[in-house]
């Protein structure tokens, strides 16, 4: 069956196909100039939703990575102070043991100055915040020295609570050590003045050195040794937390790198493919135009007259 084809130039099908080739060509050019495989949401809805989800995950992980950095910073700051405290305790023990050779009063003076140093370590501030005040945020230092003879010798203005930071969607890290746990060995109400209270033991050591009370000095030294191990445990705990945070952070960084790669795969245009496609479409368009131009435009009228 023959179908009549009245007028080739006006043929609707040819026109439509030409327009489509041009549209496809324009789309490929747009992809190349923007570098994106998906220009409009409607071009590939599934990919668009996937990209949105990947981006959300990456952003969320970045939040946690940044929080991990902050946590590490805070933990390291605490760690540094703990090292100084440990050094101070060691010096106290040395001073206590050296009393046997008769330097009682001189050592006592140094013990006092170490006690003052310990209090100022407990009042360490980082960026305007007290490191060891628990969850209390105020301009009053957590440890106020009322004098070794006063009761209480030290007023603790912080609390016994810990602060958490989110380092993943299901994990938090405790970033602080409350001041009373650090220097008193427990909540201020129950631990201040006891054998675990570092400041009290330093004051006791000083008093006993001055009064040459060997038994008292010995008791104080025993307690200081115990306190030293307690601080050691705290140091290990901080170190452990830091490791945990670092591991978590490394994991998140790796995960983010993977997500970013997958996102790029969907999001970015594949240049070699797109350029090849562009030349193909260009060729296709030229061929169509050429064919249409050369189509036999002569009709019978040209030959009759």
């Amino acid at each position, binding site marked *: 069956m023959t179908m009549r084809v009245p007028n080739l130039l006006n043929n609707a099908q040819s026109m439509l196909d030409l327009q489509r080739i041009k549209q496809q060509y324009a789309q490929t050019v747009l992809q190349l100039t923007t570098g994106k495989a998906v220009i409009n949401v409607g071009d590939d809805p599934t990919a668009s939703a996937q990209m949105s989800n990947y981006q*959300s995950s990456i*952003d969320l992980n970045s939040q946690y990575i940044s929080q991990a950095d902050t946590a590490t910073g805070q933990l390291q700051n605490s760690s540094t102070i703990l090292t100084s405290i440990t050094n101070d305790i060691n010096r106290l023990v040395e001073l206590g043991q050296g009393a046997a050779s008769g330097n009682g009063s001189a050592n006592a003076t140094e013990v006092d100055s170490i006690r003052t140093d310990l209090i100022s370590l407990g009042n360490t501030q980082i960026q305007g915040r007290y490191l060891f005040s628990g969850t209390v945020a105020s301009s009053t230092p957590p440890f106020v020295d009322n004098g070794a003879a006063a009761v209480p010798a030290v007023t603790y203005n912080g609390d016994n609570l810990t602060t958490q930071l989110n380092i993943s969607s299901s994990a938090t890290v405790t970033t602080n050590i409350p001041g009373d746990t650090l220097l008193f060995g427990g909540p201020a109400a129950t631990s201040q003045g006891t054998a675990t209270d570092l400041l009290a033991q330093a004051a006791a050591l000083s008093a006993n050195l001055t009064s040459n009370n060997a038994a008292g000095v010995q008791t104080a030294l025993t307690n200081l040794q115990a306190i030293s191990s307690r601080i050691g445990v705290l140091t290990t705990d901080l170190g452990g937390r830091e490791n945990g945070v670092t591991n978590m952070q490394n994991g998140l960084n790796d995960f983010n790198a993977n997500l970013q790669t997958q996102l790029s795969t969907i999001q970015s245009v594949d240049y070699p493919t797109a350029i090849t496609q562009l030349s193909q479409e260009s060729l296709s368009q030229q061929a169509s135009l050429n064919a249409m131009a050369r189509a036999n435009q002569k009709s019978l009228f040209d030959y009759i007259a």
Partner: protein
Amino acid sequence: MANLTTSLGIGLSGLQAAQQSMSVIGHNIANINTPGYSQQSTVLTTNPSQEYGNLQFGTGVNVSSVQALRDQFLNLQLTQSICNQSSAETHSNALQAVSSAFADDGTTGLNTQIQAFFASFQTLSADPTNASLQQNVVGKAQSMITELQSASSTLNNEMGSINEQIGSTVPEINTLTSQIAVLNGQISQQINPSNDNDAIDQRQQLTDQLANLVGIQVSTDSKNNYQITLDSGAATLVSGQTAYQMTTAMDPSNNNYLKVSVQSGGVTSDVTDKIAGGTLGANMDLRDVVLPGYTTQLDRIAGSIADQVNTVNMAGYGTDASGNPSHNIPFFTGSGIDTSNPPDANFGHVNLADNTLAASAANPPNYKGIINSLVVNPLIVATPSNIATSNAKGVAGNNVNVLALANLQNQTSTVDTAGTGTFNSGPFSTVVSGLLNKVGTQAQQFNTTATNQENLTTALQTQKNSVSGVDMDTSAAQLLAFQQGYQAAAHFISTISQLTSQLMTSLTGS
């Protein structure tokens, strides 16, 4: 008996038939580029023969009719296809325009801003009393609101401009239906209603233009009148020589958008939701169903974020301007946001029916229009320390509540996606990307439908051309044939004339 005079008559009939046929061919050639023109041809019939004795002698030829070559079934199919194509194209173009509101490339976009807002809580948790971090939270909240409002206003602007298009389409429709009615009259008044070929072609063109604008059904009656009704059958547009006008009026129950009615015999029937095809049908669907669906989802997302953040914030403690603990402070305020404490179990939103805040299973929450009035609580904007970071009264350094605020971004069942009062969604980010997917999918579907319809229309058009189109070669051949016929008939007449002269000469003897 066949005599010279009769023969003259026969020759003359041949001459006239050839001349009329050539005239029709000329008409075809002149109209070769006229859109919608159907090629015409003469129907030549032999004249009745005369009987002389036992012999029948023919008496020549006559043109019994001028016929146009058209396929009515094809025309009806084409009209239908045009309705569907224009509807799909209108949908596709509009969705293309609004999909830019939902694009998210990681630096701008809805999900990015929502994420940044919750991230600001995360950063604040490391130092809850830090004034610049608190200010940062307020800033990010305001950016998020701006983004939500921008997406919503893109959609609303599109609806507004579609409304204007509807307003300008209706007069065009009325013009076309009036013209079609006039042509109906012209055609049906002919003794033979198929005679006026040019009027019939013109009417078909107008009908196709009408089909582009509004979805219609066409049928023909015995007098070749076009009966045109809306595709749903809800109203008649043209019947015989009468065209029924479409009118528009503002509808206060729908944002003062236009509603469309057809007036017939003093009765005005509202056809706003009863048009499926054509530009008008597509625009109605976009303006009243598709785009409001998206704005509703945006409102629900915004409302849900506000509700969830408010609940957690009101449960915690911040610090007011005088340094005292503050409690029960909502983070977001705006019309339709429930700031009672504790908030209603379903976060009762303004119920359109009775303007109350109470929600129940029978009165599910209504989030309509929340985005436009959503703001960060002015109390918090003035004094950012009012952000409830702490869960212990008077302990400003406690960050438990702000951790809870940050963790809202991970929680599921936070959004009332179906508007029924049941919170059954994934986290905020998946709800937003779900909306993105929905917009993209619909855009893609309409694009595909439009392409398919375009293919169908083009194929039908090509078929129609092959039946009705004027072909130069055929016209040339026909012209040649009739030209020769004319020449032959003229020669015949000339021969008869010579014979007559000879006869005359012989009779008069000179």
